[in-house]
């Protein structure tokens, strides 16, 4: 089916396969329809259907609350039933060098538990994939309709393997599946790479990473690339990682390995929101700073007076991300272009 999209700055068209989400078809064809979460929550991908037939596969998606008329659709949840004409605000151009997302598949390997409610696993891909540090993939698992978005933890060019970390979400079908037995060696479907919260080498800024829980995933990818690209030879990195209690912490050894490679340049602070920092934890990681508090508040306190030349990355649950954005906009006064964020909702 042919989809024509018009915006105030021009129009584009692309082919959409039966059953394919309109957003995925557009991005795959190099047409940058607006999107953010791509999982039906944020409403960014709203478009107006002016001709043709398109149907949402998830009409009760939370992002539907942003739709103002029956003619409006979420392109990330909708499939075309006919040739369609759509209207959106603006068609942006893809950042040069980004890979268009595509559908692919892979096998789950190296599945392991990191904490009582966090698992990590790799997906060995059928075909290699290029992606940017900080991007995510939509994952579909056998027998469950609908996809969940998970950020890549690793960074590789022509990656043959994607690494993920998932925090258990009670009631979440995909999450429940990932915490049941038989995940190892299961075949999963992916649409990747997606997301704009990316880091590219050459950004002339200090890096500020604020992560809550599994929001640390994309930061690991960014730190891997930044380290490899020698970013920390010139610029500092400040990582703030928030979890509830000491037993919720993970990736600490990996973060310590990053830190140890860039002493005096890369700093890691772990914030515990629900308990005082046990002496055993701070003793185990003498190179880290620890604090009790909400991660955005800890970051605000420790970053005071160091606001120049910052690029901020924020990922985690919505309240934590919003609180961080407020601080970055109001106090740090960063322009939106220097605030890259990922809200898990």
């Amino acid at each position, binding site marked *: 089916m042919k989809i024509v999209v018009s915006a*105030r*700055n*021009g*129009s584009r068209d692309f082919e959409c396969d039966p059953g394919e989400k309109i957003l995925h078809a557009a991005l795959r064809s190099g047409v940058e329809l607006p999107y*953010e979460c791509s999982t039906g929550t*944020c*409403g*960014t991908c*709203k478009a107006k259907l002016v001709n043709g037939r398109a149907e949402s596969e998830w009409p009760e998606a939370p992002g539907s609350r*942003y739709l*103002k008329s029956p003619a409006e659709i979420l392109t990330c949840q909708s499939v075309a039933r006919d040739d369609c004409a759509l209207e959106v*605000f*603006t068609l942006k*151009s893809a950042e*040069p060098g980004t890979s268009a997302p595509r559908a692919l598949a892979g096998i789950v390997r190296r599945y392991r538990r990191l904490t009582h409610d966090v698992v990590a696993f790799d997906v060995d891909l059928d075909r290699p994939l290029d992606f940017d540090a900080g991007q995510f993939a939509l994952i579909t698992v056998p027998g469950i309709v609908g996809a969940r978005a998970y950020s890549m933890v690793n960074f590789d060019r022509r990656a043959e393997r994607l690494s993920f970390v998932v925090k258990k979400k009670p009631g979440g079908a995909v999450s429940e599946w990932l915490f049941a037995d038989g995940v190892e060696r299961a075949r999963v479907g992916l649409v990747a790479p997606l997301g704009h919260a990316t880091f590219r080498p050459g950004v002339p800024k200090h890096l500020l990473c604020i992560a809550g829980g599994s929001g640390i995933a994309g930061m690991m990818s960014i730190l891997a690339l930044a380290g490899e690209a020698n970013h920390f030879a010139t610029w500092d990195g400040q990582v703030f990682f928030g979890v509830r209690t000491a037993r919720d912490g993970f990736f600490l050894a990996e973060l310590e390995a990053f830190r140890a490679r860039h002493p005096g340049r890369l700093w890691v602070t772990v914030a515990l929101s629900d308990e005082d920092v046990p002496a055993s934890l701070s003793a185990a990681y003498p190179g880290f700073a620890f604090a009790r508090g909400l991660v955005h508040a800890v970051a605000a306190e420790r970053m005071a007076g160091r606001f120049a030349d910052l690029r901020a990355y924020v990922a985690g649950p919505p309240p934590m991300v*919003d609180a961080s*954005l*407020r601080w970055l*906009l*109001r106090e740090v*006064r960063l*322009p*939106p*272009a220097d*605030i890259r964020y990922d809200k898990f909702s």
Partner: protein
Amino acid sequence: MGQYDRHVFVCTSGETCPTQGDVEKFVKTLRAGVQKAAGQGDVRVNKAGCFSQCGHGPMIVVYPENVWYAGVQQADLEEILTSHLVGGAPVERLRYDPGVPGANKIDVETKPATPAPEQRAPAGGPVWTRVCGSADVPANGMKEFPVNGVGVLVAHTGEAFVAYQAMCPHEAVPLEGGVHDGCTLTCLEHMWQFDLKTGAPMGDAEVGLKGYPLKEELGELYVQLEG
């Protein structure tokens, strides 16, 4: 025959281009870039008036190719410079193609809110409706109030009160949940930004905010819903 190899026009005085990007800086960037590439062609960069395509800005037109660029961002200038002005290959992804020759203005709200504290309502003139007490709006904050069934956002800039539509024009999200720093109002949903004093769109924002005339009298705030 023209006087220059390439002649670049940047709209700096139309109704919307200057509100959609820092077009004065665009001119500076382009001129500096052209100068740096001196010897690779004689390129002239001029500020221009309105091209009658309001709403598609910031716009840049390049002759002799007669290439029109729309929605140009600061980050695009380097590519325009290297690829087109120096290299001769227009940047296809930025090309403007409205499909209709001639004027293509879009109706964009650009009129600033004009707080009118001294204005008196003449008989039969504009109607002032009470919104709230001045103390109900947090200092340097903002809050939404219903006024005759209309949601009105009242913000305190640190110096004065301003009143706007309550919802972000982008996604119909309450602006009250956003932040402002006295100059810029940001909607947290997708980071659209507006000039707090005029409601004009900034950065990624496509349209501005509808403003309401506001006055303060004896510790009470009043707005004119319709002028």
